[in-house]
């Protein structure tokens, strides 16, 4: 059976069914109302402490949005209407605390579910969450794993919440398996950071597995085996051991340069979306950050982040990278990335429409807020600014005028900024690739965004299955495009990076080395593996490979040639 692997690694252990449903609420009369009220206030106090801890953790991590949620939760737990209401029901009707809590909270939930505002309607969910946590405390239902079942346990649930990652504090938890999930949920991100094998998207798994069943899951491939044979267990134990040894070998490369077999040095840098990612980068072996996707700072909120909020975030990221380069991409909104409060309107062709720098040059105040925040933070490390979706030289010049304006303003205000903050552009529109010789004279670096560049070069929507045969990096036009951009940049003496998914594609890395790419920017957990792969590739041979590719006419020939080259070095 197969699911979606979310966090790599192999877990072997006994199934533990983790109940995420609401517990059954007892309806009992009580004799001693004083004891009952005390029981309730104990639960409230415990939960308050617990939430306060989470609040402090989130604020310490600079995650103000999450901290705000916890602050609201703390206020709900201690809401005078809730507390007085529950105590009154215990007093007058002698109901047990759980029953009283159910009645009082239902009143508020109903009230909120009737509201017109969809945002406020969702707050009913917050109250349900708090009620469930209080009920668990009252009923003595623990969220920890009973380690007496086995010393190796795989936790199975419908869907995991970010807080469930705390289950790994018990050493016996070896993996997670759920019916619902996605690589981008907070839980998934935490699972990856915690290095706990995790598989999701297995519908009906809760009906198929009984508590205590033997289970194997492979977070790399998404494979699941229920009640495996002895042979299968042995095979996976071996695989797990191999993986462990391989990972230990990779760890030795953490502080080593990224070098090809014939001693040519390149750089491997990371893609990040926020402060949390930044803090793991050096540990994962990154030589810097090649793409900080700042749109995540703008998402999931009701209005744009202020200059100070952004400044604090950039400062933390720059400090976390300890002076290594951090390429900050300015707001890349539009296309498939929607931010409701920006009111960008619906378009027939959003990918060909009003997005990224096209939008920012018109919304000058919004753009300036971001640039000012980056420049102010620049004293804390090695910041670079990268502008997405450039199609013309004029756009670059206009953006540079605004950046200079911000620099002068800050200088007049007496604010210190770094002497030089390099400005580069994304090459993701074919027109930019075609005039890359002209653009290279105006900027300090290029970064090739492969997802968009492929889709625009081939005029093939990457979400459309019917044209998927066109959406791949093997077409001669795309190989030529890469060569043109890299050669034009090098001619003008600037460095070329790539921050799309292709930069960490094991079979494509030799092609990029052969083309002369300088910097490979990728997700943190691909860095060490890519560094290891490169050690086996000689630049000379890679250049010969590229020379061959440039003579081929079809995607199929190109793909086969690249794969044949890969087979020779990958093992």
């Amino acid at each position, binding site marked *: 059976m197969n699911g979606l692997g979310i966090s790599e690694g192999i877990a072997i252990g006994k199934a533990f069914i983790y109940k995420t449903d609401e517990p059954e609420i007892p309806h009992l009369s009580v004799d001693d109302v004083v004891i009952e009220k005390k029981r309730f206030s104990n639960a409230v106090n415990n939960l308050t402490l617990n939430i306060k801890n989470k609040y402090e953790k989130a604020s310490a991590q600079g995650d103000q949005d999450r901290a705000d949620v916890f602050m609201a939760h703390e*206020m709900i737990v201690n809401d*005078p209407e*809730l507390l007085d209401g529950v105590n009154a029901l215990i007093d007058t009707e002698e109901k047990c605390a759980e029953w009283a809590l159910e009645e009082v909270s239902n009143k*508020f939930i109903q009230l909120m579910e009737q*509201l017109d505002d969809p945002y*406020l309607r969702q707050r009913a969910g917050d*109250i349900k969450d708090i009620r469930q946590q209080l009920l668990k405390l009252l009923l003595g239902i623990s969220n920890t794993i009973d380690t007496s079942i086995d010393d190796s346990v795989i936790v199975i649930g419908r869907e995991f919440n970010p807080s469930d990652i705390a289950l790994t504090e018990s050493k016996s938890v070896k993996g997670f398996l759920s019916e619902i999930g996605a690589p981008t949920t907070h839980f998934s991100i935490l699972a990856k950071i915690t290095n706990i094998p995790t598989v999701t998207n297995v519908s009906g798994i809760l009906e198929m597995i009984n508590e205590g069943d033997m289970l194997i899951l492979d977070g790399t491939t998404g494979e699941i085996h229920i009640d495996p044979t002895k042979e299968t267990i042995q095979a996976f134990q071996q695989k797990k051991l191999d993986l462990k040894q391989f990972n230990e070998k990779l760890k030795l490369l953490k502080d080593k340069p990224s070098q090809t077999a014939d001693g040519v040095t390149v750089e491997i840098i990371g893609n990040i979306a926020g402060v949390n990612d930044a803090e793991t980068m050096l540990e994962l072996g990154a030589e810097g950050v090649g793409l900080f996707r700042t749109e995540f700072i703008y998402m999931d909120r009701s209005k744009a982040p202020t200059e100070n909020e952004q400044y604090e975030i950039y400062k933390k990221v720059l400090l976390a990278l300890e002076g290594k380069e951090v390429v900050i991409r300015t707001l890349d909104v539009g296309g498939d990335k929607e931010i409701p409060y920006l009111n960008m309107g619906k378009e027939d062709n959003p990918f060909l429409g009003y997005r990224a720098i096209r939008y920012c040059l018109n919304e000058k105040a919004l753009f300036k807020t971001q640039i000012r925040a980056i420049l102010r933070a620049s004293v804390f490390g090695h910041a670079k600014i990268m502008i997405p979706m450039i199609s013309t030289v004029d756009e670059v010049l206009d953006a540079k005028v605004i950046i200079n304006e911000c620099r002068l303003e800050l200088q007049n205000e007496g604010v210190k900024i770094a002497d030089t903050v390099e400005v580069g552009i994304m090459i993701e529109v074919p027109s930019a690739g075609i005039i890359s010789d002209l653009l290279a004279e105006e900027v300090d670096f290029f970064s090739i965004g492969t997802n968009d560049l492929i889709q625009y070069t081939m005029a093939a929507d990457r979400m459309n299955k019917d044209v998927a045969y066109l959406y791949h990096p093997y077409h001669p036009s795309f190989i030529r495009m890469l060569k043109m951009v890299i050669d034009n940049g090098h001619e003008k003496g600037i460095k070329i990076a790539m921050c799309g998914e292709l930069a960490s594609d094991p079979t494509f890395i030799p092609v990029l080395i052969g083309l002369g790419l300088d910097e490979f920017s990728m997700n943190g957990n691909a860095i060490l593996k890519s560094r290891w792969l490169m050690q086996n590739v000689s630049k000379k041979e890679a250049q010969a490979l590229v020379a061959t590719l440039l003579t081929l006419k079809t995607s199929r020939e190109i793909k086969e040639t690249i794969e044949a080259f890969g087979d020779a070095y990958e093992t």
Partner: protein
Amino acid sequence: MKTIKIINKTGIHARPAGLLTKEAQKFSCDIDLIKDGKSVNAKSIMGILGMGIAEGDVIGIQANGTEADSAISSIYSIIEKINQE
């Protein structure tokens, strides 16, 4: 009773409601918010959220007990601040 019109586009959401409650809890007197003749305890975040205060609503602030007057003016200035966000 003092009244104020809400001009914040998103009305009074979780965070502003939190700010308001926190301010109200600094006072020992009873403070009520009134909308369309219904009143809620200003110290209760659930009460305020449950009112569903939206842009254009006119809210009354009422207080009884010690420092009632300064309580009313503090709550008034917090809502003014929320309006400017």
